């Protein structure tokens, strides 16, 4: 048994599963549900969870991508030069590009979340603590952006996993 290869594979699969599962869970289930609740609830949840979510998901994404590169170079009879060449290489390249795109989209989503959190904080710190029409518009814009980025991220991670999983069969 090639132990380094097995360990790298395990790390890649576990970190990748966490990334995919968490991204889909967040975009499809959690965020729409939180947004359907009260503004106070949304504010509290964002304050408590947004940084933590970003930290875990970003770390999982980095571990998945780095271990993926290591895995390509460690896999017998495969190398980086195969990327885009054979059927396997094309599928892995598609998966890699989708994963990198998802990683950057996830970063933009993190920025949109931070803006939304700051917008909530500025409302909270305003003298009368009420939401002006402009603030409400701004909040709605950040929410829309966050929602679109979340769905795009989920689609990209699905494409990444799908193409990587079928690579060996094409």
């Amino acid at each position, binding site marked *: 048994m090639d132990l380094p290869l097995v360990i790298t594979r*395990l790390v890649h699969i576990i970190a990748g599963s966490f990334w995919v*599962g968490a991204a889909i869970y967040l975009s499809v289930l959690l965020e729409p549900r939180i947004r359907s*609740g009260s503004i106070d609830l949304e504010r509290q*949840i964002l304050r*408590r*969870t947004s940084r933590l979510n970003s930290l875990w998901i970003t770390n999982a994404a980095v571990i998945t991508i780095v271990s993926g590169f290591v895995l390509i170079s460690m896999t017998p009879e495969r190398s980086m030069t195969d990327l885009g060449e054979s059927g396997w290489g094309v599928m892995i390249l598609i998966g890699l590009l989708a994963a990198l795109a998802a990683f950057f989209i996830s970063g933009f989503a993190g920025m949109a979340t931070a803006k939304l959190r700051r917008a909530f904080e500025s409302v909270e710190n305003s003298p009368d603590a009420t939401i002006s029409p402009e603030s409400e518009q701004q909040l709605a814009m950040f929410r829309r952006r966050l929602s679109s980025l979340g769905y795009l991220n989920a689609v990209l991670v699905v494409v990444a*996993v799908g193409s990587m999983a079928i690579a060996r069969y094409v």
Partner: protein
Amino acid sequence: MPGAIWVGAAIFLAWVFQPAIAKTGPPHSGAVIANMVKPMVILLHSAAWLTTVFGVVMAFRVPGRDPLFDYLWSTDWGTMFWLGFLFAVVGYILGTVAGINSKKMMDLGKSLTGPPTPEQSGQITTYQKRANMLAKVASLPVLAAVAFMALAQHV
């Protein structure tokens, strides 16, 4: 794909989201749980069932492992495979029990007409703690199932 959703969502829920929500305190954590239990249960059960059904179908179609049951009990691959299956089933059962506790907490919260009595508060806290603990425990065999399945082809 459903397997990745099952594992990822279970770990995220148990180790990241639930502990963070618990820190927000009863009014907010209760509202989130009440809002989320049903879709969460649907997502995790669907992912678990799809993973199991497709996993079993795939097991019967693995090239060079036919008839499956001969290989299942007599080879290292088979041992890793059925251990993975066993851990997945254990994780699913524990996750279901965690879901039942979350639902009990939600039902109790819904039945309240005014502020909860100390006894009701205690019961809600007990259900929440039990659900959080079981979700954490359930994520471990699910993780072990992934590890065993991933290792199967290397032993």
